[in-house]
């Protein structure tokens, strides 16, 4: 049997004690970090299907929420879930408040789908909305830092990515595009305030997007890149004059 040297024993005891202390120190430091991370995950977790991501705050006319194949009549204060499809009729106008402060107004005869939502109670917000047809106005709450909130509105031929702004997207099918009448499937993006980055993922590779600022609009016809921004409304005005 080998006897331990008293100095060694004292040293090992000291080392063991130090290790216990370190472990305790690490554990003491880790627990709050893990707790903070868990809390962050809890607050900033992606929303899953079946989890409310917002609610209907205003409704005029008729609208429907399609959830899991079931068609539900929309009503004020009704919760909306991830992957819900929301439709307004010809007389319908619906406002949706998402968790985190983003407000979406669906104009008549429009359909959207809530594709993705990551929402935090404090600062970070990210949402992806698919506009299938019609017009949608989005107001991203700008009281929170612009760098921590984001919203993407996608149509079948355009992506509008924004941070803290107020803008309107329309996806129109079956009508001639004003800038290219032979194209009958186009998106327009008009900005009230802030900036919106618009790209066309279906355009030829290497095509660039445009940045649209407040008061301006861009058109995205079919598979071509977005047009250079022009004053919002010039297309509607057409020919000014005194008649």
């Amino acid at each position: 049997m080998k006897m331990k040297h008293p100095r060694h024993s004292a040293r090992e005891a000291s080392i063991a004690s130090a290790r216990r202390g370190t472990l305790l120190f690490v554990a003491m430091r880790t627990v709050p970090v893990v707790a903070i991370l868990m809390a962050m995950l809890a607050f900033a977790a992606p929303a899953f299907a079946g989890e409310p991501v917002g609610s209907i705050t205003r409704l005029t006319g008729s609208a429907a929420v399609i959830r899991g194949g079931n068609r539900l009549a929309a009503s004020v204060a009704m919760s909306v879930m991830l992957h819900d499809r929301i439709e307004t009729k010809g007389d319908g106008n619906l406002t949706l408040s998402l968790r985190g402060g983003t407000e979406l107004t669906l104009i008549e005869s429009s359909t959207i789908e809530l594709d993705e939502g990551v929402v935090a109670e404090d600062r970070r917000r990210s949402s992806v909305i698919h506009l299938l047809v019609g017009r949608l106005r989005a107001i991203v709450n700008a009281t929170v830092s612009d760098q921590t909130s984001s919203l993407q509105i996608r149509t079948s031929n355009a992506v509008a990515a924004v941070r803290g702004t107020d803008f309107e997207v329309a996806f129109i099918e079956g009508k001639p595009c004003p800038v290219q009448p032979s194209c009958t499937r186009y998106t327009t993006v008009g900005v009230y305030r802030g900036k919106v980055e618009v790209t066309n993922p279906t355009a030829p590779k290497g095509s660039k997007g445009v940045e649209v600022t407040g008061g301006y609009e861009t058109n995205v016809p079919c598979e071509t890149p977005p047009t250079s921004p022009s004053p919002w409304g010039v297309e509607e005005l057409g020919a000014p004059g005194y008649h």
Partner: protein
Amino acid sequence: MRPWRIAAQAARLAALTFLTVAALAPTSRAGTDFLEIRRPGHLGLTVFGSGFGSDTYSNTHAGFQLEQSITNQLGAVARVSAWQIYQGKGYDSPFPTGATGVRTFERFQGGIDFTPVHGFSLIVLGGRDVGNSNAAVIEGDFSGWMFLASRHPINFSFSSSHYYENNVTSSRIDLRQVVYSTGRWFLMAGGGGAIWGGGTAGQPNGQGGPDLSLYIRELRTSIDLQFGYGSSHLYGLVGISTTFGWDE
């Protein structure tokens, strides 16, 4: 050559230039878009009112214009307006004399709207005045946007009419630029005026001054102002128009 004939030739030149630009524009696809029936069709309605005032001539008129698309580049236009002329004679008066007292007439016009290139349009109208004025009238309205895909596009408009009641030819020219744009409205500023002559007007007359136009996008309403000086002395002109549209 009489100056009003020069104005008429300028109108022809503008139309020719416009057609040349249309023919040369790479994006016009004139052959296919001109013949291709627009589906769905679009019906547009413009309601307008206008007033002109000076110490020698004053009038008001109001009416509406219907535009029905036919092909992607061609449409049919009908315009009905009611006119009141309070005193004198001026750039858009069809009367041979400037007698005092209110004279009224209605104007019925029909024609085509040609849009060969995005941002350019030419309306050609023929029609007749009914009432205190009772004769044919022909009109051509051209509008072209330049630098449309920019922050400050420029609009050039040229409108020329011939009144068979007094055989006067009158033309309006305006050049305006978008100077400020917000999400709800934009403002245009520029200059313009009118030149008229021939018939009972005789020698050429003219007037001109700065233009200011406000377009309120959400109301689809345009308010146009012009003031200036010319043959009718110091004058002011105000116009307001609102458009509506329906896809069929």
